């Protein structure tokens, strides 16, 4: 309940923040939304000597369409995504996702960037970003890097983010016409991790065939999972029920869940199969509109 003592640093620019990171190394921790770090510190499972509060760095909070991409700033809060008109109209899948993250108070502080940088397979945005083929923009001592999302998640709680880097932007290619996506999550209650969740994004061509397919899985493996087999299977096919069921089956085979209080591994695989089918169906339906 009571966190250990730490020194508080409040940079007002990115270079300042990175300088602090270099200076204090792994003694320091970035404080962005703080909605996972602070509870950890309160239970004294985390005890950084320095907290670098980046919340006062200007110009990192935005949602905009620019040169073929949707760009989300590194300090953009979940609540901002949830209520953004662009998101609601063009990226219902992101709205779906933001809406089921934690609870309203947490979403007012929590950031998308942190949700990704955390590298937790149970977080919701990773699957969605995998489905959307997003890119993570990081800024560090050596300058800016643009990392394709499928290269971002290394292993459990480990990402491609370097110790002296900060996630400054997320870029999502604007989907062509006749695209749609959906995120479906089963949680024990509002605010819980997903028992399992599936993100699906599809683009249909004129004949109603799946041109592009993106499928991401939440909390069913050591990292967020891109269901490549299912994607490949569906590409070039008409998304009728039988086909979607088969794709869902493939997706569930790509899941590698382990048992916990949310249920046994077999159940979670079954859940992926069902949620994948439903998410794909909704994505196709939205793409048709």
């Amino acid at each position, binding site marked *: 309940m009571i966190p250990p003592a730490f020194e508080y640093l409040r940079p007002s620019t990115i270079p300042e923040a990175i300088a602090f990171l270099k200076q204090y190394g792994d003694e320091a921790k970035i404080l962005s939304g703080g909605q996972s770090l602070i509870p950890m510190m309160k239970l004294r499972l985390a005890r950084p000597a320095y907290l670098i509060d980046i919340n006062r760095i200007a110009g990192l909070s935005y949602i905009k369409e620019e040169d073929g991409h949707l760009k989300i700033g590194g300090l953009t809060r979940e609540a901002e995504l949830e209520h953004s008109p662009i998101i609601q109209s063009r990226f219902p899948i992101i709205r779906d996702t933001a809406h089921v993250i934690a609870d*309203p108070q*947490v979403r*007012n502080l929590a950031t998308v960037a942190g949700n990704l940088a955390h590298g937790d397979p149970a977080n919701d945005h990773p699957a969605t970003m995998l489905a959307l083929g997003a890119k993570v923009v990081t800024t560090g001592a050596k300058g800016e890097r643009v990392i394709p999302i499928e290269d971002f998640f290394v292993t459990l709680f480990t990402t491609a983010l370097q110790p002296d880097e900060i996630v400054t932007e997320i870029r999502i290619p604007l989907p062509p016409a006749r695209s749609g996506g959906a995120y479906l999550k089963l949680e024990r209650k509002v605010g819980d991790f997903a028992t399992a969740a599936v993100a699906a994004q599809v683009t249909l061509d004129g004949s109603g065939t799946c041109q592009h397919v993106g499928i991401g899985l939440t909390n069913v493996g050591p990292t967020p999972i891109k269901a490549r087999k299912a994607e490949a299977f569906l590409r070039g096919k008409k998304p009728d029920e039988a086909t979607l069921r088969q794709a869902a089956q493939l997706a569930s085979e790509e899941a590698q869940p382990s048992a916990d209080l949310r249920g046994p591994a077999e159940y979670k695989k079954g859940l992926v199969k069902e949620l994948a089918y439903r998410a794909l169906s909704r994505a196709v339906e939205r793409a048709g509109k």
Partner: protein
Amino acid sequence: MAKKQLVRVKVNGRERQAEVEPRLLLVHFIREVLGLTGTHVGCDTSHCGACTVVLDGKTVKSCTMFTPQADGCELMTVEGLMQDGKLHPLQEGFKEEHGLQCGFCTPGMLMSSYALLQHNKKPSEEDIRWGISGNLCRCTGYQNIVKAVQYAAGKMELGGAK
């Protein structure tokens, strides 16, 4: 001992300032430094929402924020709801519709409902249930809290209270 931080906040319209240890949780600053004990602590993992306050117009869990993070911000707690001796329509609603029993979750519920009504003047029952989904209540089963918020929404539409 970590370097103390000077924190200036506007609390319920009043400027307050104090030198605090960086690790001081906002909820302890509010309760023990400012002496505003309406904001409560009900858990240690950021689930219950009893500590909910409005920070620059948005609800936050004050048990999951360090006090220096609020420096320069405007803070509203349950004690700030009443305006010139008049109950806020939400306070009235909670009383009229029996939206509270033990009263421990009530300040947090009021803050979440307040923020909800700020950006959604006519919330549906579902909107309200999702709007207070970050606040746990053990007594009411939420049903009368929903009614209380609807009561306030109606009242505010007529009376134009904020």
